[in-house]
């Protein structure tokens, strides 16, 4: 590891995490609120009832405030792949760049064009054109999410490419494999539906406050009705896609799966930890060893983890230790390599590339052809090259191949538990909404308001699991963060980290203050 500047890597990771997490504060609301606004405007156009128009405009104002800061935090992310992860940009730019460009061409222009009509077109275009524009903003935002999530899914489950030793990078061979990989589909559906749930909770929370204040009561009740129906459908879909995502993780990212359940020892009939607390770890036996944390307390559902992962209660789930030390699946007899073996194969792959490049430079055509043949051999690619990224580690540093187990475990469980809460919230809100008894249920309205911070926590927890659970990989098994980073001094990254931390925090405070003021004004308070 002596040639890796770990301070630089940590600060670069920190900067990316900072910008991604800030961006993700604003994006989910954009994804879902547009649909809620579009539904309300559709009711307005169909019924001609002015109060639905006022309602549409009220939520659209909040949308606009949120959208602006979402745009501000988003531009950084696109360029950070180049500024901070330059090796990554070259190593997989042939695949990763395409979705980003398509996102710009297909989605961003659609959003920015029709948002203008949504805000400025009320008195200038026909009702139907305006309504179409609002729907197109919603669709544009979600298409944008599609492409960036396809890109993200590809990092977690790289498919549809081969490595070209001449250019020293991975090159796309199947666009459709990238777009329609099961990981991409699950990730897209799960992530956007989480945005819909967040938006529904946001609308319910704000409307609950109106009801408690006895302000714009009719508006608030109708908003809750629309949001709880939208939220309930989304939450059911969220559970379904979450299930699909977990199964996909078990298949392609077994370490992330073990980490999110804090499963140290593999077993058949593995139980699912419903609730658990990890105890303080014992000090590592040797410097750099991973720290094992056992449960201080846990409630388990028998066989559930095996069933969740493979739809089979008897299925074997490898634990963290099995994945590090290698194991044989007792059910299938399939042997899985240890990290030490993968490191050796990764080094072999890297050295083969080095020898090939040197042979080409030296003009040694025969040796170059022999080495190149390895890269063209599917067997060698599947059994040696696929561990390329492990080659950057050694026996002494292989603990760096583990993600943070507590962070993965807690973020996963927090997300799941809170999702259950939101599902229940939508059901209860819908029932009392239909019975027209919301105003009397003060406790429920308070729960509605307090669910707003909870849904943001759940949403962030989901991303923390997705991104921290896959560490150290920027591209699963092929490139770790330490080989992806740009060659800049850590001091520069520290400065930009704080520059953006201060800027985003300041803008977040501004956004919240503006948002709260607009909410207090209410539906009749104008813009």
């Amino acid at each position, binding site marked *: 590891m002596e040639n890796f500047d770990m301070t630089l890597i940590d600060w670069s990771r920190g900067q990316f995490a900072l910008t991604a997490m800030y961006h993700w504060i604003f994006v989910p609301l954009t994804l879902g609120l547009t649909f809620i606004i579009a539904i309300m405007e559709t009711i307005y156009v169909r019924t001609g009832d002015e109060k639905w128009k006022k309602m549409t405009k009220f939520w659209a104002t909040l949308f606009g405030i949120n959208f602006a800061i979402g745009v501000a935090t988003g531009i950084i992310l696109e360029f950070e792949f180049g500024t901070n992860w330059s090796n990554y940009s*070259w190593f997989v730019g042939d695949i990763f760049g395409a979705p980003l460009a398509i996102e710009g061409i297909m989605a961003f222009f659609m959003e920015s064009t029709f948002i203008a009509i949504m805000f400025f077109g009320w008195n200038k275009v026909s009702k139907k054109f305006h309504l179409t524009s609002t729907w197109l903003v919603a669709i544009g935002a979600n298409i944008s999410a599609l492409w960036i999530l396809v890109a993200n899914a590809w990092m977690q489950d790289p498919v549809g490419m081969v490595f070209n030793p001449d250019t020293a990078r991975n090159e796309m061979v199947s666009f459709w494999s990238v777009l329609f990989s099961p990981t991409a589909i699950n990730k897209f559906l799960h992530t956007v539906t989480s945005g819909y749930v967040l938006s529904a909770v946001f609308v319910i929370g704000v409307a609950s406050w109106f009801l408690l204040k006895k302000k714009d009561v009719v508006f608030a009740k109708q908003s809750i009705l629309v949001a709880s129906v939208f939220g309930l459908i989304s939450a059911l879909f969220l559970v379904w896609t979450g299930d699909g995502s977990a199964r996909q993780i078990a298949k392609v990212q077994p370490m992330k799966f073990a980490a999110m359940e804090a499963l140290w020892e593999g077993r058949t009939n593995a139980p699912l930890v419903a609730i658990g607390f990890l105890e303080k770890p014992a000090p590592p036996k040797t410097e750099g060893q991973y720290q094992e944390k056992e449960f201080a307390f846990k409630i388990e559902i028998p066989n559930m983890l095996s069933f969740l992962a493979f739809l089979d209660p008897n299925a074997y789930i490898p634990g963290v230790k099995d994945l590090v030390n290698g194991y044989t699946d007792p059910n299938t007899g399939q042997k899985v390599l240890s990290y030490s073996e993968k490191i050796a194969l990764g080094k072999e792959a890297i050295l083969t590339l080095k020898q090939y490049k040197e042979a080409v430079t030296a003009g040694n055509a025969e040796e170059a052809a022999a080495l190149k043949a390895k890269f063209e051999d599917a067997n060698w690619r599947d059994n040696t090259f696929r561990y390329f990224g492990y080659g950057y580690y050694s026996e002494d540093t292989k603990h760096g191949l583990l993600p943070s187990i507590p962070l993965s475990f807690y973020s996963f469980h927090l997300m799941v538990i809170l999702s259950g809460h939101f599902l229940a919230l939508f059901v209860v809100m819908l029932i009392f909404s239909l019975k027209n008894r919301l105003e009397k249920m003060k406790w429920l309205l308070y729960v509605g308001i307090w669910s707003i911070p909870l849904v943001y926590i759940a949403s962030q927890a989901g991303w923390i699991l997705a991104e921290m659970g896959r560490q150290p990989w920027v591209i699963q098994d092929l490139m770790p963060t330490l080989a992806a980073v740009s060659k800049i001094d850590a001091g520069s990254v520290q400065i930009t980290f704080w520059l953006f931390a201060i800027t985003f925090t300041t803008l977040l405070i501004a956004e919240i203050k503006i948002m709260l003021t607009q909410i207090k004004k209410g539906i009749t308070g104008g813009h």
Partner: protein
Amino acid sequence: MFESLSLLALQQYWWVIVSILASLLVFLFFVQGGQTLIYTLGKTEMERKMLVNSLGRKWEFTFTTLVTFGGAFFASFPLFYSTSFGGAYWVWMLILFAFVIQAVAYEYRTKPNNFLGQRTFEWFLIINGALGTILVGAAVSTFFTGSAFSVNKLNLTNIFGEGSTTISAWEGPAHGLEAALNIQNLSLGLAIFFLARILALLYFMNDIDDENIFARSKKQLLINTVPFLVFFLLFVGLLLTKDGFAVIPEQGVDPLLWKVKMEPFKYLHNLLQMPLVLIIFLIGVVFVLWAIIGTLIGKCKHGIWAGGLGTVLTVFSVFLVAGFNNTAYYPSTYDLNSSLTIMNSSSSKFTLTAMSYVSLLVPFVLAYIFHAWKSINNKKIDAREMEEETHTY
């Protein structure tokens, strides 16, 4: 359709697309130019409101074009993305910072309880306008002046402590800020800055129905044209007389391995050897001058169209000079053979082909943008609209 094209043809096609996006971006910088003029042209609160709202209905196009430009460059020439962005770190970070603060400024400027106050958000717009244009201009100028960097793909294999594993490395501590010390880079940065202000003035004269703003814009047009011409001519003069970075094609050798060497008057040669590009360049310059002169001496209010078209043509031709005719478009002064060419820095044939199909969407995008804007932009902005409109900045 695109499958039948050669890799070189696809690389050229994508260089054309990137050049078009860059030229549209410079035209759309009128938003940035306009932001630097809000206090110069707007003497009352209502005048500033009209100016900001006039720009506020366009700023997202500039922003989106910048993002798409970045995405398209990444998809088509990823080695540029990794080399320039990872190397000239500070230049790009400052550009990004300037755009971050712009994105919230319009929406939050006049919202009650906005924490920072209206003036702060207006200064965000001014900082974006000045920093964004000057730095992008200086960064683009390095396409001709070069930067000190090295590219070695073998670095990826340095797993036993032989050195850094990073392929592209900037060979200087300033990480891009050194570009500001070069007179040619500075002259293009300032030329773009004043051009953006000129375009903004032409735009305001066309878009805002207010006598005072019109009169002040006309006066400012002359004031900004003089420095624009000085810096633009300085840049062009330096460009056409300097040595350029020429790629030497070798029959039977992989273009990835072609060498780069200095050639006297390379960029002048490029213009002369590509007469169509020269014609586009000259027409572009004439259109810009025509827009300015026509507005100054006549009563023309629509100079933005000729000025905009001229800008697009000029910038487009400058990008073709940078990348075509066996020229290294992102040259390295540290190691000539590390220079980036459209041949050695592009995506694979498969990706360029797939992306080329996506590029067919662009005319549809332009068509709906045109239609949408026509339907809400058929009337000039005036004080009355600012008072009646429910959503203003």
